[in-house]
Protein backbone atom coordinates (compact mmCIF):
# COMPACT_ATOMS: atom_id res chain seq x y z
CA UNK A 1 0.00 0.00 0.00
CA UNK A 2 2.73 2.42 0.87
CA UNK A 3 4.13 2.54 -2.61
CA UNK A 4 0.97 4.16 -3.90
CA UNK A 5 0.99 6.93 -1.33
CA UNK A 6 2.70 10.23 -1.83
CA UNK A 7 2.70 11.23 1.80
CA UNK A 8 1.81 9.41 4.95
CA UNK A 9 1.75 11.00 8.36
CA UNK A 10 1.55 8.46 11.14
CA UNK A 11 0.75 9.16 14.76
CA UNK A 12 2.53 12.46 14.69
CA UNK A 13 2.98 14.22 18.00
CA UNK A 14 4.86 17.30 19.00
CA UNK A 15 5.31 18.64 22.49
CA UNK A 16 6.94 21.94 23.35
CA UNK A 17 8.35 22.70 26.75
CA UNK A 18 7.50 26.17 28.00
CA UNK A 19 7.63 28.11 31.20
CA UNK A 20 10.58 28.29 33.50
CA UNK A 21 13.09 25.58 32.81
CA UNK A 22 10.61 23.85 30.56
CA UNK A 23 8.40 22.82 33.39
CA UNK A 24 5.16 23.06 31.49
CA UNK A 25 4.45 21.21 28.30
CA UNK A 26 2.34 22.28 25.38
CA UNK A 27 1.10 19.48 23.18
CA UNK A 28 0.80 21.00 19.76
CA UNK A 29 0.01 17.74 18.03
CA UNK A 30 -1.37 14.61 19.64
CA UNK A 31 -1.14 11.69 17.34
CA UNK A 32 -2.18 12.86 13.89
CA UNK A 33 -2.52 10.34 11.09
CA UNK A 34 -3.49 10.86 7.48
CA UNK A 35 -2.26 10.08 3.99
CA UNK A 36 -2.16 11.53 0.52
CA UNK A 37 -2.43 9.39 -2.56
CA UNK A 38 -0.20 9.50 -5.54
CA UNK A 39 -3.01 10.95 -7.58
CA UNK A 40 -2.70 14.75 -7.36
CA UNK A 41 -5.17 16.23 -4.94
CA UNK A 42 -5.65 19.14 -2.60
CA UNK A 43 -6.02 18.25 1.05
CA UNK A 44 -7.33 20.94 3.31
CA UNK A 45 -6.32 21.19 6.94
CA UNK A 46 -8.83 23.39 8.68
CA UNK A 47 -8.10 24.68 12.13
CA UNK A 48 -7.98 27.71 14.35
CA UNK A 49 -4.87 29.14 15.92
CA UNK A 50 -3.66 26.70 18.52
CA UNK A 51 -4.89 23.73 16.54
CA UNK A 52 -1.38 22.70 15.64
CA UNK A 53 -1.70 23.29 11.93
CA UNK A 54 1.46 25.36 11.60
CA UNK A 55 3.40 22.81 13.59
CA UNK A 56 2.13 20.13 11.25
CA UNK A 57 3.32 22.15 8.27
CA UNK A 58 6.77 22.68 9.75
CA UNK A 59 7.17 19.00 10.50
CA UNK A 60 6.18 17.92 7.01
CA UNK A 61 8.60 20.49 5.64
CA UNK A 62 11.28 18.92 7.83
CA UNK A 63 11.94 22.20 9.58
CA UNK A 64 11.33 20.73 13.02
CA UNK A 65 11.41 17.19 14.32
CA UNK A 66 8.35 15.48 15.75
CA UNK A 67 8.36 14.25 19.34
CA UNK A 68 6.78 11.01 18.20
CA UNK A 69 5.40 9.48 15.04
CA UNK A 70 6.67 9.32 11.51
CA UNK A 71 6.37 10.98 8.16
CA UNK A 72 6.75 8.92 5.01
CA UNK A 73 7.33 10.44 1.61
CA UNK A 74 6.98 8.05 -1.30
CA UNK A 75 7.41 5.22 1.13
CA UNK A 76 10.61 6.46 2.72
CA UNK A 77 10.83 7.84 6.22
CA UNK A 78 11.57 11.53 5.98
CA UNK A 79 13.52 11.96 9.18
CA UNK A 80 15.85 9.11 8.34
CA UNK A 81 16.76 10.24 4.88
CA UNK A 82 20.34 10.37 3.75
CA UNK A 83 22.02 13.53 2.49
CA UNK A 84 21.34 13.01 -1.18
CA UNK A 85 17.77 11.99 -0.56
CA UNK A 86 17.16 15.07 1.55
CA UNK A 87 18.12 17.22 -1.40
CA UNK A 88 15.46 15.54 -3.52
CA UNK A 89 12.92 15.91 -0.75
CA UNK A 90 13.62 19.59 -0.49
CA UNK A 91 13.15 20.00 -4.16
CA UNK A 92 9.87 18.15 -4.30
CA UNK A 93 8.25 19.51 -1.16
CA UNK A 94 7.95 23.28 -1.07
CA UNK A 95 6.19 25.79 1.17
CA UNK A 96 4.01 28.81 0.73
CA UNK A 97 3.85 30.92 3.84
CA UNK A 98 1.30 33.35 5.06
CA UNK A 99 3.05 36.67 5.27
CA UNK A 100 4.16 38.02 1.91
CA UNK A 101 6.74 40.23 3.55
CA UNK A 102 8.67 38.20 6.09
CA UNK A 103 9.49 35.48 3.58
CA UNK A 104 11.99 37.84 2.02
CA UNK A 105 15.39 38.61 3.43
CA UNK A 106 15.26 42.40 3.47
CA UNK A 107 18.93 42.64 2.71
CA UNK A 108 18.76 41.16 -0.76
CA UNK A 109 16.96 42.01 -3.95
CA UNK A 110 14.06 39.82 -4.96
CA UNK A 111 16.07 38.38 -7.86
CA UNK A 112 18.01 36.31 -5.37
CA UNK A 113 14.76 35.02 -3.95
CA UNK A 114 13.96 33.46 -7.29
CA UNK A 115 17.40 32.49 -8.47
CA UNK A 116 18.76 30.91 -5.33
CA UNK A 117 16.56 27.81 -5.31
CA UNK A 118 17.16 27.38 -9.02
CA UNK A 119 20.82 27.10 -8.27
CA UNK A 120 20.76 25.17 -5.02
CA UNK A 121 17.78 22.90 -5.59
CA UNK A 122 17.62 22.44 -9.31
CA UNK A 123 21.29 22.74 -10.04
CA UNK A 124 20.91 25.27 -12.82
CA UNK A 125 24.26 26.95 -12.86
CA UNK A 126 23.99 28.93 -16.04
CA UNK A 127 23.01 32.49 -15.28
CA UNK A 128 21.31 32.99 -18.63
CA UNK A 129 19.23 29.91 -18.20
CA UNK A 130 18.14 31.01 -14.74
CA UNK A 131 17.26 34.48 -15.93
CA UNK A 132 15.20 33.13 -18.79
CA UNK A 133 13.24 30.86 -16.49
CA UNK A 134 12.65 33.69 -14.03
CA UNK A 135 11.30 35.98 -16.73
CA UNK A 136 8.97 33.31 -17.96
CA UNK A 137 7.65 32.57 -14.49
CA UNK A 138 7.08 36.24 -13.71
CA UNK A 139 5.12 36.71 -16.89
CA UNK A 140 2.91 33.79 -16.06
CA UNK A 141 1.84 35.42 -12.80
CA UNK A 142 1.05 38.71 -14.44
CA UNK A 143 4.18 40.62 -13.49
CA UNK A 144 6.44 42.52 -15.82
CA UNK A 145 10.04 41.49 -15.08
CA UNK A 146 11.30 45.02 -15.51
CA UNK A 147 8.95 46.31 -12.85
CA UNK A 148 10.09 43.84 -10.32
CA UNK A 149 13.61 42.57 -10.88
CA UNK A 150 16.40 44.51 -9.27
CA UNK A 151 14.15 45.76 -6.50
CA UNK A 152 14.20 45.21 -2.80
CA UNK A 153 11.19 43.63 -1.09
CA UNK A 154 10.19 46.80 0.70
CA UNK A 155 9.98 48.60 -2.62
CA UNK A 156 7.27 46.30 -3.92
CA UNK A 157 3.61 46.10 -3.05
CA UNK A 158 2.11 43.20 -1.12
CA UNK A 159 0.43 41.93 -4.25
CA UNK A 160 3.67 41.92 -6.19
CA UNK A 161 5.46 40.12 -3.41
CA UNK A 162 2.88 37.39 -3.23
CA UNK A 163 2.92 36.91 -6.96
CA UNK A 164 6.68 36.51 -6.81
CA UNK A 165 6.16 33.83 -4.19
CA UNK A 166 3.81 32.14 -6.62
CA UNK A 167 6.37 32.52 -9.41
CA UNK A 168 8.87 30.73 -7.23
CA UNK A 169 6.54 27.76 -6.94
CA UNK A 170 6.04 27.75 -10.68
CA UNK A 171 9.78 27.72 -11.14
CA UNK A 172 10.42 24.87 -8.76
CA UNK A 173 7.51 22.72 -9.83
CA UNK A 174 7.24 20.83 -6.55
CA UNK A 175 5.40 17.58 -6.30
CA UNK A 176 3.86 18.53 -2.97
CA UNK A 177 3.02 22.04 -1.92
CA UNK A 178 2.58 22.84 1.74
CA UNK A 179 0.61 26.05 1.89
CA UNK A 180 0.24 27.49 5.40
CA UNK A 181 -2.52 30.11 5.38
CA UNK A 182 -1.42 31.27 1.93
CA UNK A 183 -4.33 33.61 1.28
CA UNK A 184 -5.19 35.01 4.71
CA UNK A 185 -3.28 38.19 4.05
CA UNK A 186 -4.28 38.54 0.43
CA UNK A 187 -6.84 40.61 -1.33
CA UNK A 188 -9.92 39.00 -2.78
CA UNK A 189 -8.70 39.15 -6.36
CA UNK A 190 -5.23 37.88 -5.54
CA UNK A 191 -6.78 35.05 -3.53
CA UNK A 192 -8.79 34.07 -6.55
CA UNK A 193 -5.70 34.07 -8.74
CA UNK A 194 -3.78 32.00 -6.22
CA UNK A 195 -6.51 29.39 -5.84
CA UNK A 196 -6.92 29.15 -9.58
CA UNK A 197 -3.19 28.62 -9.99
CA UNK A 198 -3.14 25.83 -7.44
CA UNK A 199 -5.87 24.01 -9.29
CA UNK A 200 -4.11 24.64 -12.57
CA UNK A 201 -0.82 23.29 -11.27
CA UNK A 202 -2.64 20.25 -9.96
CA UNK A 203 -3.99 19.51 -13.41
CA UNK A 204 -1.03 20.45 -15.54
CA UNK A 205 1.95 19.68 -13.33
CA UNK A 206 0.73 16.85 -11.22
CA UNK A 207 1.15 18.88 -8.05
CA UNK A 208 -0.61 17.99 -4.81
CA UNK A 209 -1.24 20.54 -2.11
CA UNK A 210 -1.78 20.49 1.59
CA UNK A 211 -3.78 23.66 2.09
CA UNK A 212 -3.84 24.90 5.65
CA UNK A 213 -6.41 27.52 6.47
CA UNK A 214 -8.99 28.71 8.94
CA UNK A 215 -11.32 29.88 6.18
CA UNK A 216 -13.85 27.18 5.44
CA UNK A 217 -15.25 28.72 2.29
CA UNK A 218 -11.81 28.92 0.71
CA UNK A 219 -11.06 25.38 1.85
CA UNK A 220 -14.30 24.14 0.40
CA UNK A 221 -13.59 25.76 -2.93
CA UNK A 222 -10.11 24.52 -3.56
CA UNK A 223 -9.83 21.25 -1.63
CA UNK A 224 -10.87 17.73 -2.52
CA UNK A 225 -10.71 16.42 1.01
CA UNK A 226 -10.73 18.15 4.35
CA UNK A 227 -9.25 17.38 7.71
CA UNK A 228 -10.49 19.35 10.69
CA UNK A 229 -7.83 19.87 13.33
CA UNK A 230 -8.63 20.91 16.84
CA UNK A 231 -6.04 21.27 19.60
CA UNK A 232 -3.72 18.82 17.99
CA UNK A 233 -6.26 16.16 17.12
CA UNK A 234 -8.16 15.33 13.96
CA UNK A 235 -11.85 15.57 14.79
CA UNK A 236 -13.28 15.01 11.36
CA UNK A 237 -12.20 14.19 7.85
CA UNK A 238 -13.80 13.48 4.55
CA UNK A 239 -14.57 14.89 1.11
CA UNK A 240 -14.70 18.68 1.26
CA UNK A 241 -18.29 18.90 0.21
CA UNK A 242 -19.55 16.40 2.77
CA UNK A 243 -17.65 17.94 5.63
CA UNK A 244 -19.04 21.39 4.93
CA UNK A 245 -22.58 20.48 4.01
CA UNK A 246 -23.07 17.69 6.50
CA UNK A 247 -20.61 18.09 9.36
CA UNK A 248 -20.61 15.28 11.92
CA UNK A 249 -18.49 16.52 14.77
CA UNK A 250 -19.86 19.33 16.99
CA UNK A 251 -16.73 21.39 16.50
CA UNK A 252 -17.06 21.18 12.74
CA UNK A 253 -20.69 22.06 13.05
CA UNK A 254 -19.80 25.18 15.02
CA UNK A 255 -17.28 26.17 12.36
CA UNK A 256 -19.72 25.68 9.52
CA UNK A 257 -22.34 27.59 11.43
CA UNK A 258 -20.02 30.56 11.75
CA UNK A 259 -19.21 30.85 8.08
CA UNK A 260 -20.43 34.16 6.71
CA UNK A 261 -22.66 33.48 3.76
CA UNK A 262 -22.13 35.64 0.74
CA UNK A 263 -25.83 36.23 0.36
CA UNK A 264 -27.43 39.19 2.02
CA UNK A 265 -30.82 37.60 2.08
CA UNK A 266 -29.76 34.80 4.35
CA UNK A 267 -27.79 34.85 7.51
CA UNK A 268 -26.97 36.66 10.66
CA UNK A 269 -29.00 39.80 10.35
CA UNK A 270 -32.10 37.76 10.05
CA UNK A 271 -31.46 35.52 12.99
CA UNK A 272 -33.01 36.30 16.30
CA UNK A 273 -31.21 35.98 19.58
CA UNK A 274 -27.65 35.74 18.38
CA UNK A 275 -25.29 34.07 20.79
Amino acid sequence: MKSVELLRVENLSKTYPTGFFGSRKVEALKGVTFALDEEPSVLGVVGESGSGKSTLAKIILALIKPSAGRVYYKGKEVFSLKRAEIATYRKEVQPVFQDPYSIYNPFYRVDRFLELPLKSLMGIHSKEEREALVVEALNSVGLRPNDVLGRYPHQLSGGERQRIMLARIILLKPRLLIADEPVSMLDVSLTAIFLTKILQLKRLQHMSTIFITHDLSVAHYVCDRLIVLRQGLIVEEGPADSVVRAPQHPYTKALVESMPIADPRKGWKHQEGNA
Partner: protein
Amino acid sequence: MIDVGLLEVRDLAVCYKSLWGVYKVLDGVSLNVGKGEIVGIAGESGSGKSTLAEGVLRLIRPPGYIPKGKVIFEGVDLLMLGEQELQQIRWKKLAYIPQGSMNSLNPVLKIGDQMTDVMMDHGIKDKREMRDHIVERLRRVGLSESVLSRYPHELSGGMRQRVVIVMATLLDPTLIIADEPTTALDIVSQKQVITQIIDLNREMGTSVMLISHDLSIHAQASDRLVIMYAGKIVEFDRITKIFERPSHPYTSLLLESVPRLEKREIKGIPGLAPSPLNWPSGCRFHTRCPIADEYCANVEPELRMKSEDHEAGVACHKAG
Protein backbone atom coordinates in the same frame (compact mmCIF):
# COMPACT_ATOMS: atom_id res chain seq x y z
CA MET B 1 -35.87 56.22 4.65
CA ILE B 2 -32.45 57.51 5.43
CA ASP B 3 -31.84 60.91 6.95
CA VAL B 4 -29.00 62.36 5.07
CA GLY B 5 -27.84 63.30 8.36
CA LEU B 6 -25.57 61.69 10.83
CA LEU B 7 -22.35 61.77 8.90
CA GLU B 8 -21.80 63.50 5.63
CA VAL B 9 -18.45 63.27 3.92
CA ARG B 10 -17.99 65.71 1.05
CA ASP B 11 -15.20 65.44 -1.41
CA LEU B 12 -12.62 64.34 1.15
CA ALA B 13 -9.06 63.85 0.02
CA VAL B 14 -5.96 62.66 1.86
CA CYS B 15 -2.45 62.89 0.48
CA TYR B 16 0.98 61.83 1.66
CA LYS B 17 4.15 63.64 0.74
CA SER B 18 7.20 61.57 -0.02
CA LEU B 19 10.52 61.72 -1.78
CA TRP B 20 8.98 60.41 -4.95
CA GLY B 21 6.03 62.69 -5.07
CA VAL B 22 2.57 62.98 -3.62
CA TYR B 23 0.52 59.87 -2.88
CA LYS B 24 -3.10 60.71 -3.42
CA VAL B 25 -4.40 57.92 -1.29
CA LEU B 26 -7.92 59.28 -1.03
CA ASP B 27 -8.97 61.44 -3.90
CA GLY B 28 -12.32 63.11 -3.46
CA VAL B 29 -14.74 60.83 -1.65
CA SER B 30 -18.32 61.69 -0.75
CA LEU B 31 -20.73 59.51 1.19
CA ASN B 32 -23.43 59.59 3.84
CA VAL B 33 -24.21 57.56 6.86
CA GLY B 34 -27.72 57.92 8.15
CA LYS B 35 -29.10 57.29 11.60
CA GLY B 36 -29.37 53.68 12.53
CA GLU B 37 -27.81 52.18 9.47
CA ILE B 38 -24.75 50.04 8.91
CA VAL B 39 -22.79 51.27 5.95
CA GLY B 40 -20.14 48.92 4.72
CA ILE B 41 -16.98 50.11 3.00
CA ALA B 42 -15.43 47.47 0.81
CA GLY B 43 -12.30 47.53 -1.28
CA GLU B 44 -8.96 45.92 -1.61
CA SER B 45 -5.78 47.13 0.01
CA GLY B 46 -4.75 50.37 -1.57
CA SER B 47 -8.33 51.42 -2.22
CA GLY B 48 -8.14 54.00 0.54
CA LYS B 49 -10.75 52.61 2.87
CA SER B 50 -8.65 52.74 6.04
CA THR B 51 -7.46 56.19 5.11
CA LEU B 52 -11.09 57.20 4.81
CA ALA B 53 -11.65 56.27 8.44
CA GLU B 54 -8.52 58.10 9.52
CA GLY B 55 -9.47 61.13 7.53
CA VAL B 56 -12.96 61.30 8.97
CA LEU B 57 -11.55 61.06 12.47
CA ARG B 58 -8.77 63.52 11.76
CA LEU B 59 -6.08 61.03 12.59
CA ILE B 60 -3.90 61.90 9.67
CA ARG B 61 -0.34 62.78 10.69
CA PRO B 62 2.47 64.24 8.63
CA PRO B 63 3.63 63.41 6.01
CA GLY B 64 -0.09 62.96 5.43
CA TYR B 65 -2.39 65.92 5.05
CA ILE B 66 -5.94 66.75 4.06
CA PRO B 67 -5.98 69.08 1.09
CA LYS B 68 -9.74 69.37 0.76
CA GLY B 69 -13.10 68.15 1.89
CA LYS B 70 -15.69 68.41 4.61
CA VAL B 71 -16.66 65.91 7.25
CA ILE B 72 -19.99 66.94 8.72
CA PHE B 73 -20.98 65.00 11.79
CA GLU B 74 -24.26 65.89 13.44
CA GLY B 75 -24.16 69.20 11.67
CA VAL B 76 -20.59 70.16 12.58
CA ASP B 77 -17.61 70.07 10.24
CA LEU B 78 -15.04 67.98 12.10
CA LEU B 79 -12.20 69.27 9.99
CA MET B 80 -12.78 72.75 11.29
CA LEU B 81 -12.76 71.89 14.96
CA GLY B 82 -9.97 72.45 17.42
CA GLU B 83 -8.32 69.55 19.18
CA GLN B 84 -10.21 70.22 22.43
CA GLU B 85 -13.60 70.15 20.79
CA LEU B 86 -12.70 67.05 18.84
CA GLN B 87 -11.79 65.29 22.06
CA GLN B 88 -15.29 65.98 23.30
CA ILE B 89 -16.80 64.29 20.35
CA ARG B 90 -14.40 61.38 20.03
CA TRP B 91 -15.49 58.42 22.06
CA LYS B 92 -18.58 60.05 23.45
CA LYS B 93 -20.33 60.40 20.16
CA LEU B 94 -17.96 58.98 17.62
CA ALA B 95 -16.23 55.72 18.43
CA TYR B 96 -13.30 54.28 16.54
CA ILE B 97 -12.18 50.70 16.47
CA PRO B 98 -8.96 50.71 14.47
CA GLN B 99 -7.38 47.81 12.68
CA GLY B 100 -5.63 45.44 15.01
CA SER B 101 -7.04 47.17 18.05
CA MET B 102 -7.30 43.90 19.91
CA ASN B 103 -3.55 44.03 20.04
CA SER B 104 -3.36 47.57 21.30
CA LEU B 105 -4.62 46.83 24.76
CA ASN B 106 -2.05 47.67 27.39
CA PRO B 107 -0.45 44.35 28.28
CA VAL B 108 0.46 45.31 31.82
CA LEU B 109 -2.93 46.51 32.98
CA LYS B 110 -5.96 44.47 33.81
CA ILE B 111 -8.94 44.94 31.56
CA GLY B 112 -11.00 46.52 34.30
CA ASP B 113 -8.29 49.08 35.01
CA GLN B 114 -8.00 50.02 31.38
CA MET B 115 -11.71 50.63 31.16
CA THR B 116 -11.69 52.87 34.22
CA ASP B 117 -8.66 54.71 32.88
CA VAL B 118 -10.42 55.55 29.67
CA MET B 119 -13.51 56.70 31.49
CA MET B 120 -11.55 58.94 33.80
CA ASP B 121 -9.74 60.42 30.83
CA HIS B 122 -13.09 61.51 29.56
CA GLY B 123 -14.18 62.99 32.82
CA ILE B 124 -16.43 60.34 34.21
CA LYS B 125 -15.98 59.99 37.90
CA ASP B 126 -18.60 57.76 39.39
CA LYS B 127 -16.89 54.41 39.41
CA ARG B 128 -19.63 52.34 40.96
CA GLU B 129 -22.20 53.31 38.39
CA MET B 130 -19.79 52.82 35.56
CA ARG B 131 -18.82 49.37 36.77
CA ASP B 132 -22.39 48.22 36.73
CA HIS B 133 -22.76 49.62 33.26
CA ILE B 134 -19.61 47.87 32.07
CA VAL B 135 -20.65 44.55 33.51
CA GLU B 136 -24.01 44.83 31.82
CA ARG B 137 -22.40 45.54 28.48
CA LEU B 138 -20.03 42.63 28.85
CA ARG B 139 -22.87 40.35 29.74
CA ARG B 140 -24.70 41.33 26.59
CA VAL B 141 -21.89 40.04 24.45
CA GLY B 142 -21.53 36.88 26.45
CA LEU B 143 -18.48 37.89 28.48
CA SER B 144 -18.43 37.38 32.21
CA GLU B 145 -17.45 39.90 34.85
CA SER B 146 -14.27 37.96 35.52
CA VAL B 147 -12.87 39.40 32.32
CA LEU B 148 -12.30 42.66 34.16
CA SER B 149 -9.70 41.16 36.43
CA ARG B 150 -7.76 39.50 33.65
CA TYR B 151 -4.85 40.70 31.59
CA PRO B 152 -5.12 41.01 27.81
CA HIS B 153 -2.86 38.08 27.08
CA GLU B 154 -5.11 35.82 29.09
CA LEU B 155 -7.94 36.37 26.68
CA SER B 156 -8.29 35.02 23.18
CA GLY B 157 -8.15 37.33 20.16
CA GLY B 158 -11.88 37.18 19.75
CA MET B 159 -12.53 38.04 23.37
CA ARG B 160 -10.10 40.93 23.23
CA GLN B 161 -11.78 42.37 20.21
CA ARG B 162 -15.17 42.18 21.87
CA VAL B 163 -13.73 43.88 24.95
CA VAL B 164 -12.34 46.66 22.77
CA ILE B 165 -15.73 47.17 21.20
CA VAL B 166 -17.39 47.29 24.61
CA MET B 167 -14.85 49.88 25.73
CA ALA B 168 -15.40 51.95 22.66
CA THR B 169 -19.17 51.96 23.02
CA LEU B 170 -19.55 52.45 26.77
CA LEU B 171 -20.98 55.90 26.31
CA ASP B 172 -23.40 54.93 23.59
CA PRO B 173 -21.90 56.84 20.72
CA THR B 174 -24.09 57.63 17.78
CA LEU B 175 -21.57 56.41 15.25
CA ILE B 176 -18.98 53.64 15.35
CA ILE B 177 -16.25 53.40 12.76
CA ALA B 178 -14.82 49.88 12.73
CA ASP B 179 -11.80 49.18 10.54
CA GLU B 180 -11.37 45.50 9.69
CA PRO B 181 -12.65 44.32 13.06
CA THR B 182 -12.43 40.68 12.11
CA THR B 183 -9.10 40.26 10.42
CA ALA B 184 -6.88 37.73 12.13
CA LEU B 185 -9.79 36.34 14.08
CA ASP B 186 -10.92 32.78 13.84
CA ILE B 187 -14.19 32.12 12.16
CA VAL B 188 -16.20 31.61 15.34
CA SER B 189 -14.94 34.82 16.94
CA GLN B 190 -15.56 36.60 13.70
CA LYS B 191 -19.22 35.81 13.87
CA GLN B 192 -19.36 36.85 17.52
CA VAL B 193 -17.79 40.22 16.81
CA ILE B 194 -19.99 40.97 13.82
CA THR B 195 -23.05 39.89 15.77
CA GLN B 196 -22.01 42.24 18.55
CA ILE B 197 -21.88 45.09 16.06
CA ILE B 198 -25.23 44.16 14.55
CA ASP B 199 -26.78 44.03 18.01
CA LEU B 200 -25.43 47.45 18.90
CA ASN B 201 -27.07 48.73 15.79
CA ARG B 202 -30.35 46.97 16.43
CA GLU B 203 -30.73 47.65 20.10
CA MET B 204 -29.11 51.05 20.54
CA GLY B 205 -29.71 52.46 17.10
CA THR B 206 -25.99 53.09 16.72
CA SER B 207 -24.89 53.79 13.18
CA VAL B 208 -21.88 51.93 11.95
CA MET B 209 -19.30 52.50 9.27
CA LEU B 210 -17.95 49.00 8.78
CA ILE B 211 -14.75 48.70 6.81
CA SER B 212 -13.79 45.29 5.51
CA HIS B 213 -12.39 43.70 2.39
CA ASP B 214 -14.52 40.64 3.04
CA LEU B 215 -17.68 40.81 0.98
CA SER B 216 -19.33 37.97 2.84
CA ILE B 217 -19.08 39.93 6.07
CA HIS B 218 -20.82 42.81 4.38
CA ALA B 219 -23.49 40.49 3.10
CA GLN B 220 -24.17 39.52 6.66
CA ALA B 221 -23.90 42.87 8.36
CA SER B 222 -24.20 45.91 6.14
CA ASP B 223 -27.39 47.63 5.04
CA ARG B 224 -25.70 49.57 2.31
CA LEU B 225 -22.36 48.92 0.73
CA VAL B 226 -19.81 51.36 -0.67
CA ILE B 227 -17.23 49.95 -3.05
CA MET B 228 -13.92 51.78 -3.27
CA TYR B 229 -11.19 51.52 -5.81
CA ALA B 230 -8.03 53.54 -6.23
CA GLY B 231 -8.95 56.23 -3.74
CA LYS B 232 -12.44 56.82 -5.06
CA ILE B 233 -15.92 55.43 -4.70
CA VAL B 234 -17.00 53.44 -7.71
CA GLU B 235 -20.38 52.24 -6.57
CA PHE B 236 -22.70 52.27 -3.61
CA ASP B 237 -26.16 50.80 -3.13
CA ARG B 238 -28.32 48.68 -0.89
CA ILE B 239 -26.57 45.45 -0.07
CA THR B 240 -29.10 43.27 -1.82
CA LYS B 241 -28.83 45.29 -5.01
CA ILE B 242 -25.06 45.15 -4.98
CA PHE B 243 -25.11 41.39 -4.82
CA GLU B 244 -27.92 40.84 -7.28
CA ARG B 245 -27.27 43.48 -9.87
CA PRO B 246 -23.96 45.27 -9.55
CA SER B 247 -23.62 48.20 -11.91
CA HIS B 248 -19.86 48.71 -11.90
CA PRO B 249 -17.58 46.17 -13.62
CA TYR B 250 -15.22 46.20 -10.63
CA THR B 251 -18.06 45.25 -8.31
CA SER B 252 -19.04 42.37 -10.59
CA LEU B 253 -15.50 41.10 -10.77
CA LEU B 254 -15.11 41.37 -7.01
CA LEU B 255 -18.27 39.38 -6.47
CA GLU B 256 -17.07 36.73 -8.84
CA SER B 257 -13.83 36.39 -6.88
CA VAL B 258 -15.52 35.35 -3.68
CA PRO B 259 -15.64 31.60 -3.11
CA ARG B 260 -19.19 30.55 -2.45
CA LEU B 261 -20.55 27.19 -1.54
CA GLU B 262 -22.07 26.60 -4.95
CA LYS B 263 -18.82 25.75 -6.55
CA ARG B 264 -18.70 28.13 -9.44
CA GLU B 265 -15.37 28.97 -10.84
CA ILE B 266 -13.94 32.03 -9.22
CA LYS B 267 -12.07 34.49 -11.30
CA GLY B 268 -9.54 37.02 -10.21
CA ILE B 269 -9.17 40.52 -11.52
CA PRO B 270 -6.44 40.75 -14.14
CA GLY B 271 -3.62 43.21 -13.78
CA LEU B 272 -2.25 44.89 -10.70
CA ALA B 273 -3.64 47.54 -8.43
CA PRO B 274 -2.40 50.97 -9.54
CA SER B 275 -0.19 53.15 -7.39
CA PRO B 276 -1.44 56.24 -5.57
CA LEU B 277 1.61 58.00 -6.86
CA ASN B 278 0.36 57.78 -10.36
CA TRP B 279 -3.28 57.02 -10.79
CA PRO B 280 -4.27 55.96 -14.31
CA SER B 281 -5.83 58.63 -16.51
CA GLY B 282 -9.55 58.77 -17.06
CA CYS B 283 -11.38 56.05 -15.20
CA ARG B 284 -8.88 54.54 -12.80
CA PHE B 285 -10.15 51.08 -13.41
CA HIS B 286 -9.83 51.19 -17.17
CA THR B 287 -6.48 49.35 -17.20
CA ARG B 288 -8.09 46.24 -15.77
CA CYS B 289 -11.64 46.61 -16.96
CA PRO B 290 -13.03 44.09 -19.43
CA ILE B 291 -15.39 46.60 -21.05
CA ALA B 292 -13.32 49.76 -21.06
CA ASP B 293 -12.77 51.76 -24.20
CA GLU B 294 -10.89 54.85 -25.26
CA TYR B 295 -13.37 57.19 -23.72
CA CYS B 296 -12.92 55.43 -20.42
CA ALA B 297 -9.19 55.86 -20.70
CA ASN B 298 -9.43 59.58 -21.10
CA VAL B 299 -12.40 60.86 -19.17
CA GLU B 300 -12.90 60.30 -15.50
CA PRO B 301 -16.47 59.20 -14.74
CA GLU B 302 -18.52 61.14 -12.22
CA LEU B 303 -20.33 59.44 -9.39
CA ARG B 304 -23.89 59.53 -10.66
CA MET B 305 -26.93 58.82 -8.59
CA LYS B 306 -28.81 55.73 -9.62
CA SER B 307 -31.98 56.71 -7.90
CA GLU B 308 -33.78 59.78 -6.65
CA ASP B 309 -33.09 59.32 -2.97
CA HIS B 310 -29.30 59.32 -3.15
CA GLU B 311 -29.23 55.81 -1.89
CA ALA B 312 -27.27 54.49 -4.79
CA GLY B 313 -24.66 55.73 -7.19
CA VAL B 314 -22.12 54.49 -9.65
CA ALA B 315 -19.11 55.99 -11.35
CA CYS B 316 -18.88 54.33 -14.71
CA HIS B 317 -19.39 55.43 -18.27
CA LYS B 318 -20.81 52.10 -19.21
CA ALA B 319 -23.31 51.63 -16.43
CA GLY B 320 -26.82 51.82 -17.67
